[in-house]
């Protein structure tokens, strides 16, 4: 599915979006008004230039269009893997991008992300998972690492991981695991302008607290985190 198909399906009323170096930026018309559209395409491996293009566009939007909702389209294979990128502190540019998404929230910009194809580790952390809410298309790949690589690194038999993945969302790759654990709100069976508009309506009035742990417990995918956070909050002061 091409980016243009995605944009046409989500924004039938019109969009003006630029793609440069796998970075998407622009705006689109929806039934809820104009939204900023940004993100990455073609399984981008996020590097400094991409992170700074996204963060710069977010800052422009905050300054020039106060309150305009942000719609992130996520297709990232993770972070760029190179020595020159690490030399300049790639984690710093990704943190800067995450800070800009966070600032937009504090300044009253609702945000949602839609995983269109891939969402992997550092690339997903820096913007997709920073949005108020995340969604994924049905065939999207969401993961830290595939099970074969995980078997290699952890030295646990691949068959054993496959067996456990069938019952545990804790390390089974896939958007469904992230829904059960509270980090993705819902899986969209298909691209739909109506779904996007109702998601925007919900996100605009959303409480801005991070409630992913509660959702993970409600959906029975993450049974411990919520209680541990509560226990730390409620423990007697020293």
């Amino acid at each position: 599915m091409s980016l243009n198909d995605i944009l046409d399906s989500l924004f039938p009323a019109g969009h003006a979006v630029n793609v440069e170096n796998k970075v998407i930026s622009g705006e689109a018309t929806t039934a809820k008004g104009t939204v900023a559209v940004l993100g990455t395409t073609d399984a981008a491996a996020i590097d400094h230039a991409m992170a700074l293009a996204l963060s710069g566009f977010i800052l422009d939007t905050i300054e020039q269009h106060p309150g305009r909702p942000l719609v992130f389209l996520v297709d990232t294979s993770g972070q760029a893997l190179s020595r020159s990128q690490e030399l300049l502190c790639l984690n710093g540019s990704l943190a800067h991008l995450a800070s800009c998404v966070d600032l937009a929230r504090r300044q009253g910009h609702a945000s949602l992300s839609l995983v269109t194809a891939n969402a992997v580790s550092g690339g997903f952390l820096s913007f997709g998972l920073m949005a108020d809410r995340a969604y994924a298309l049905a065939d999207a790949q969401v993961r830290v690492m595939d099970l074969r690589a995980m078997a290699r690194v952890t030295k646990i038999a691949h068959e054993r991981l496959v067996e456990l993945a069938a019952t545990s969302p804790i390390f089974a790759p896939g958007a469904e695991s992230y829904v059960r654990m509270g980090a993705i709100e819902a899986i969209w069976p298909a691209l739909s302008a109506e779904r996007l508009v109702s998601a925007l309506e919900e996100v605009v009035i959303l409480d801005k607290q991070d409630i992913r742990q509660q959702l993970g417990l409600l959906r029975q995918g993450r049974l411990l985190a919520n209680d541990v956070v509560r226990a730390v909050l409620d423990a007697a002061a020293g």
Partner: protein
Amino acid sequence: MIPSLAARHSWFEATARARLAGLLDAGSFTEILPPADSQPSPHLALLDLPGAFDDGVVVCHGQLEKKPIFAIAQEGQFMGGAVGEIHGAKIVGMLRRAAQEKPAAVLFLIDSGGVRLHEANAGLIAISEIMRAVLDARAAGVPVIALVGGSCGAFGGMGIVAKLCSAIIISEEGRLALSGPEVIETVAGVEEFDSKDRALVWRVTGGKHRYLMGDCAMLVEDDIAAFRRGATEFLASWTEPAPSVAHLRAGQQALEHRLAAYASYRDGLQVWAALGVAEPESVPLLDRDSLVALKEGLPT
């Protein structure tokens, strides 16, 4: 005054609990969810791996020079300090508590390779929650200071978390990056990054390089008392800024200029020369005080 070598306690070699004992005022350490009130990770048990009752992170109240502070200390010697479900939730809870109770600071002793792969999805989501909780604590006016000098450094998602903190205090032994050199070598080849070349790894990810480039606010000796003095000194002159466009615009400009100037470099030696260091090859040999003097003499 030069402290005697006998009096020095290496941060790098110490456990998380020993670091806290030397960092905080004597007798002020009060653990939240101590091992007796906690449980090891059931996800590790499912894989027949040994767990730890604190799941590799200690969270506590304490004091630093009589000021109330919260501290979070990752144990690099358990699963590489990696973030699993319980580990991550303890950190999130402490950061949220800080936003409510407003201690003078949160000291975040990072020693972690990032996500615990055995709990991969839970670890990734927990790091995302930590990222938001750090920014929420800071927005509530509570400085969050990252202390990096352990054997696992600050890598993966924890490298991002470190850079979301108010400041990073690092030792020469500390390392800070996103992907580990081994990962880059595996994927991109040994020509791209030779993870066995220890000197190169330090010139790309090590404490001196991060300090010279301004990614870390302070460079300290590999000594628990030096981290304590560094944190005290930093906090004495720091007021947490409110989140603002102006602040992030300034950061954006600095990062853009840096990328434009140094994008083609692949070794710290090249960056240091460009920063105005007359003898870049001498940097790895300089002691901490000489390096700080060198950095302070650089053109800005």
